[in-house]
């Protein structure tokens, strides 16, 4: 673990720590700003909020091409292990694929997604970019290439292990869990799917809603 992390503390002793597991790859960049707004809102409500860089992410010194989902999952569990007091693991999208080894008092998930869907989008982006560059590729040719060496997908060099694991990764059961989709009504959080955005955006209202939902869920479960 390289140890880089963003941490926002409340004034005084935190009620609990919320460990955010952001979406994966490009989707992480698109949601980071809103996640940090949610962290600030949580800190204002008495929680410590933590956003770690896992190996190969952001400021980490480990090259992305050397990691895979299993390593991320272990690294996240190690971060969780070192946190004192009650821990809430809050994961978004592909982050939900690596959060099940982290020992937490509570789990919270927003818009979980299967790894195959993420991989398909990454491969498609590569195919589309290849076409524009005049050197056509296909799902088959890219997957064959990825079996031997890291494949550059949307700017991310992904190892053969990463691509194989991603193609098969499903969200794993954890408990106690509150899992939300985007939308309105029960079991849904109002907001915009920023992780899909072509350009990074920001949704302050959604950040507030996320923080409020996490705080309420933790209160309902007896963490005050």
């Amino acid at each position, binding site marked *: 673990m390289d140890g880089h992390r963003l941490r926002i503390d409340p004034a005084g002793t935190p009620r609990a720590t919320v460990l955010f597991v952001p979406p994966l790859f490009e989707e992480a960049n698109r949601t980071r700003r809103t996640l940090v707004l949610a962290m600030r809102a949580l800190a204002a409500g008495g929680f410590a909020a933590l956003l770690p860089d896992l190996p190969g992410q952001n400021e980490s010194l480990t090259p992305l091409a050397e990691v895979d989902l299993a390593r991320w999952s272990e690294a996240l569990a190690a971060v969780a292990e070192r946190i004192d007091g009650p821990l809430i693991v809050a994961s978004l999208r592909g982050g939900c694929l690596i959060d099940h080894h982290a020992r937490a008092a509570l789990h919270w998930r927003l818009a979980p997604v299967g790894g195959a869907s993420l991989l398909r989008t*990454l491969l498609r*982006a590569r195919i589309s970019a290849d076409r*524009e560059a005049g050197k056509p590729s*296909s*799902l088959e040719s890219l997957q064959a290439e990825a079996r031997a060496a890291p494949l550059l997908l*949307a700017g991310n060099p992904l190892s053969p292990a990463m691509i194989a694991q991603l193609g098969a990764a499903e969200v794993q059961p954890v408990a106690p869990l509150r899992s939300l989709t985007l939308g309105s009504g029960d079991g849904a959080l109002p907001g915009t799917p920023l992780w899909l955005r*072509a350009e990074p955006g920001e949704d302050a209202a959604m950040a507030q809603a996320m923080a409020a939902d996490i705080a309420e869920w933790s209160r309902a479960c007896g963490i005050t």
Partner: protein
Amino acid sequence: MQGNGEHPANDAKHPPARGAGFASPFDREEWFDLLAAHGFAGAGRHDARGTAGDTHALLPLRIERPGHYAGLANWYSFAIRPLYTGDGDRPAALADLFAALRRRAARLTLYPVPDAEQMAVASALRSAGWWVKAGPKGDRHWLDLSGLDHDGWWESRPGALRSTVRRKAKKGVVDIELFTAFDADAWAAYEAIYAASWKPEEGDPALLRAFAEAESARGTFRMGLARIEGAPVAAQYWTVEDSTAFIHKLAHVEDSLKASPGTLLSAALFRHVIEVDRVCRVDFGTGNDAYKRDWMNRHEPLWHIEAFNPARSMGAGTQGFCAFGPRARMRIRIVTEPVDTQLRALLADILGLGEERAAALTADSGLFGELPEFDSMAVATVLTEMEDRLGILIDDDEIDGEIFETYGHLLAFAERKVRGS
């Protein structure tokens, strides 16, 4: 088109199927026959049936159009709900009914489903593999008299109502007559009053009269007629069974409002059903007219349940859709909105277009190469989201640059995929 022939055991020799809890005229075989005879069975009637051990479930339906079934009900119905014989595993019998219905129906609409039963209906549908959307759509007002006698209930009514009844009754302007059997003259008076009343035109007078006559033959008919100087000015049609009074119709002529004959008539009928018929509850049926609150103490939603059969909803034939297995089944929600609406929302999400810009897209609006946000990553995201939201699978060989040239091209492609061609 009665019965589906798969459950020959459910014939007339068996005891009549009943709804859960208290009996209602709208659970009766005769009522469904009446609806069918008066043209409310759409393109045909289908009695959906299911079995679990010696417990049988029955749900009378009509065929709206091929593949689309709906509860056999109309605006006179207080409820549509599953009926049972036997006291065994009713949830399993109902799930069996809905599983069998998946072989013939792509879509099922049920309204009005009582509040107490919507959960059971929705969960039986889900366990039979239907995709279910349930929401409150109407209102049911009813009076729960448990522990209250007539005077106790009357004391709990709003002061304005009680004082109206007291003052107007004292004047002695309005004569009230109650009937416990169908009376042709009184009914003719009801029809004349209704025609002159503030209510919209009677939906189906012949059906209503046949219903009233049938109820009279069972001894459940109650009617009240109010006259001023001999002229009928207000009329109400109720029925009473199984400790419940049902208020079916009420009408009064407009220029009689000062004397409040409708209010006095209601008060008389309430007194009759509570003191003579000894009912425990009074059901005011569907609708949320403000005056109902004055008389009733319970208010519940009535549910609209819309169910889609994932194996048939795409209109593309069962095989093509089912072949995708669980992945496709999870995606069925998409069929509920037009592809155009879904596609605009999807582009708005991905490209960060506001609602207005998304709505302003025309067939000629340029996408790839014209909208700066529409890069290769956006193209990939659009494809994956289209698969998820529209319930389609896109083979990358099908993609060429043209599809993303304009909104019109993309929409045509999406609609073609949704149709399954």
